[in-house]
């Protein structure tokens, strides 16, 4: 029998650390994941987006070999999830959705337990445990029972367990779920700091998180991939791409609307509600989503229109998300 713990750290077989081919999962008659394929390179952070029940967790459970796929396959660092589940698991650090851990154990003890399972002992075990405790800032609760911990500390304890063996691939299922804004920020910085030499798959339904940590995002809905690209590429699909919001001081709304509509680079103009009575606020949508900021600025300047605010939108991920996952425009 081979010794699992003798596996050397993976020398890259290909630049793709995660390859997923037509992965599907059916539960009775319900298709949770439908022919999902994607590839993630080393050093990439892929954000896995989708409404609740879209199949994000199910996909992650299949990649960690917790549940078998109904059809299709995937490779993690060159190991097939169907043929080499133990090797796959050895390459992955996994944070399950609810960040489970053993309540009756102390944080340090729990991490020791996981390190032992991962095949470490003696000095090496202590070294690794102290590194992850430092990385996840768990020092102050090291000797505390897990059941007495706050949600943030529990989440970090489970994250620490995923980092113990310095895995080339990290699969994090909603790592910032239930954390306060400061804790979210800490977890995101941690993810960004370790992402360089790793491949990270992170599921979330917090869209700001995608922009904060992900190099690429994939949107899935009802088990199907409906959008894929860098956060900016996804945002470029937005209706608001390159639209400009201008607030003008003391202008006649009707005249302004007419003037703006006559501009050839403007596709349409929308008047927005404004709380301040002396201001008129409008949103100008460009032709073909092109950048119009410069032209508009020159126009406003030449007409000596007194502007209070001038705001260019790169597009709204939430709107793209809604459109892709519901098929409706906001």
């Amino acid at each position, binding site marked *: 029998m081979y*010794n*699992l*713990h003798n596996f050397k750290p993976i020398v890259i077989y290909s630049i793709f650390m995660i390859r997923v081919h037509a992965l599907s999962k059916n*539960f*009775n008659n319900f298709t949770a994941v439908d022919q999902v394929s994607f590839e993630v390179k080393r050093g990439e952070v892929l954000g896995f987006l989708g409404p609740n029940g879209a199949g994000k967790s199910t996909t992650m*459970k299949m990649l*960690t*070999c*917790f*549940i*078998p796929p109904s059809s299709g396959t995937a490779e993690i660092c060159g190991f097939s999830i169907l043929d080499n589940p*133990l*090797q796959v*698991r*050895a390459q*992955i650090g*996994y944070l*399950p*959705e*609810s960040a*489970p*851990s*053993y*309540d*009756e*154990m102390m944080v340090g003890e729990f991490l020791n*337990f*996981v390190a*032992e*399972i*991962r*095949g470490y002992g003696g000095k090496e075990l202590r070294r690794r445990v102290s590194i992850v405790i430092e990385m996840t800032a768990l020092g102050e609760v090291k000797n505390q029972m897990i059941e007495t911990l706050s949600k943030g500390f529990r989440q970090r304890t*489970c994250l620490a*367990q995923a980092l113990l063996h310095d895995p080339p691939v990290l699969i994090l299922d909603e790592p910032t779920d239930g954390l306060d804004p400061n804790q979210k920020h800490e977890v995101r910085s941690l993810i960004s700091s370790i992402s360089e030499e790793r491949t990270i798959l992170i599921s979330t339904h917090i869209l700001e998180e995608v922009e904060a940590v992900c190099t690429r995002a994939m949107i899935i809905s009802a088990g199907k991939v409906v959008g894929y690209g860098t956060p900016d590429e996804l945002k470029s699909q937005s209706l608001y791409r390159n639209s400009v919001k201008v607030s003008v001081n003391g202008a006649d709304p009707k005249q302004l609307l007419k003037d703006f509509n006559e501009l050839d680079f403007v596709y349409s103009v929308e008047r927005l509600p404004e709380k301040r009575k002396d201001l008129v606020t409008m949103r100008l949508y460009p032709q073909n989503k092109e950048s119009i900021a410069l032209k508009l600025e020159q126009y406003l300047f030449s007409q000596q229109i007194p502007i209070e605010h001038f705001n260019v939108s790169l597009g709204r991920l939430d709107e793209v998300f809604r459109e892709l996952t519901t098929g409706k425009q906001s």
Partner: protein
Amino acid sequence: MNGFYPIFKRELLAYFRSPVAYVFIIIFLAANAGCTFLLGNFYNSQQASLEIFFLFHPWLYLFLIPAVGMRLWAEERRTGTSELLLTFPVRMTTTVFAKFFAAWFFIGIALLLTFPMILTVHYLGSPDNGPIITGYLGSFLMAGSYLAIASCTSAMTKNQVISFILSVVICLVLVLLGWGVLSDSLNAVFPVWISDFVSQFSFTTHYDAIRRGVVDLRDLIYFISIIIIMLILNVVVLESHKAS
């Protein structure tokens, strides 16, 4: 068997971290004493032997062992730790056996704590140590079989109560198959070999032989195969749960 020891250790310690261990040991010892001295009329038997002590074990185990085993998997599934445990690079068979052996070891500790009974019979007379040793062996093996059943039913549900009831029922059937009353009523209708055949599946039939001091390989194989079959079934149940 990578990962066996850490899982075994964690599971065993988990018993002592919760009140379960202490409650179980106290009740186990009290019930043993109660059965032996009150129900079994130990003093009236005028015998320096542990026969009466071992006589009640199949009935005691019927409720106590499922109580120990019901949390093995149901708890992991309820709290979601199974998702962690089963995504470590450890074979599921190893995990199942490690958890089982931890619980069995715990029961072994409880059984060893009945040692004052041995001292008592030695104080009262000069007992034959053979049946005492085989009695403990048989009792421990039988406890393992009950536990393997409880472990398997525990994997079937997130609910510990359901797991408990299921394993009590299965164990009860396996105890009753060797019950004299059942054999007599079967004999009244069917040929004798039928009741003999049926009773071969019973805990009591095999346990009775061992506790009388006769260690027959077939009895040992019976208990060990029950354990192995139930634990393999345990793995199958876990796999099928994951698939659905």
